């Protein structure tokens, strides 16, 4: 996967988990939770969907790496290529 594809994969997951949110204006360097309504259960959904769709395991110690969209791409890119 390219970085752009990883970003799209993450956004696809978020759009399923937060279907009422407009994701077009998400800023990559700002915390996802500051921009859209996303609580801890939603965050666990993101982790679950990464596991189900891409067989990617995100250990709890790494959860902060997924704090922003840019962080998600940076963290997931090596795992998805």
């Amino acid at each position, binding site marked *: 996967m390219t970085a752009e594809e990883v970003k799209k994969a993450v956004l696809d997951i978020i759009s399923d*988990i*937060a*279907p*009422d949110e407009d994701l077009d204006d998400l800023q990559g360097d700002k915390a996802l939770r500051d921009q859209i*309504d996303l609580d801890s*259960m939603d965050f*666990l*959904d993101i982790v*679950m969907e990464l*596991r*189900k769709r891409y067989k990617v395991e995100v250990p709890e110690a790494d959860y902060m790496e997924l704090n922003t969209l840019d962080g998600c791409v940076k963290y997931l890119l090596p795992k998805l290529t």
Partner: protein
Amino acid sequence: MTLPSIAITGIGLCAPGSNNLQEFRKMLLSDGSGVENIETRHMGQVHAGVCHFDELKYQNRKQLRRGTRAGSIAIYCSRESIDNSGYNLEEADKSRIGVYLGITEHGNVETENEIHNISAFDNDTKYWTHHHNPRTVANNPAGEVTLNTGITGPHYTIGAACAAGNAGLVQAVQMLQLGEVDMALAGGVSESIHTFGIFAAFKSQGALATHEDPTKASRPFDQNRNGIVVSEGGCVYTLERLEDAQKRGANIIGLISGYAINSDATDFVLANPVQQAKCVELALKKANLKASDIDIVNTHATATPMGDIQECTALREAFSGCSDTYFNNTKGFIGHCMGAAGALELAGNLPAFEDGFIHPTKNLEELDPECALPNLVYGQATQKEDIRIILNNSFGMLGINSVVIVTRYNG
């Protein structure tokens, strides 16, 4: 000790085929049906009573995704009920409102879904959703109502098999009479058509209805009845102490004048007419009424071969010599809405206070002689002058019986 009278000031419902009381009543008086064929996991096509209300009327898509079908039904019915009652929720003390909802069962839908889900991952439980517990706790449907409305008073569900809708009302009446709450949202809900297990179990028991026309599958008291049509649905009443309802100028639909719940203590499944009759007598006693005072009895009969006969035996005993009491049944139109059945079927009858009609027992074409109650209404609706009192039966597995009596309010 004189307990305060409890008034029904609002009704919100979703029944198979109708999304409010007006639509429901119209269906009952025009031979409509909410039963259709659906595809169910492992079972293929089955008959079911399906609700088609607008889920997004009171919830957004994320809330729907997070919660359960029973929760969604409960929210829709509660919001509709509050709206119908004219109660100003936003100005009320929300800590003084209780939510009491009857359920036949809860959690089977989510559990089956997750077992199915992890089967695609070699049954590895790390794919089991973290939403499972909040979705399956027994208070879920009532809890979702409080999350949606901001009500901070007590909320819980009452597990009472298919007597649950009445049991929710009984709980609310008691809490209002005790002064524990000032307003109650009460009734019952069911999401059961979304679990294959209930269909499979009734089929194994020889109690699942089949008919080439799904709208004719639910046939209480008919010679050719062959079982239950499983349905989803919900009905939530807004209840207040009569004095409070009068003070705010509420429209009073009726008064809950009597109720009773008792147990057969004889069998897991087969009903006991002796205790059913006793339950009716207890409710009449509490209401200070005679059996002959009752204008309409909404029977519970689910169209199982034995259950219908048992209830008729009980009713012959309890209403012996009552020539002016009429009997009907509502499940022919909507199937068996399980935890919602009692509350929904009562609601379907309440407009009789205004329109003077007793809706017929649908799909009763060839009356089983063992179910031939006097004044059983079928074929077409019956008109009756001055309908004042309605008695609603709702019985369930493990031998739980419930009866609720509603009296017309004469201002």
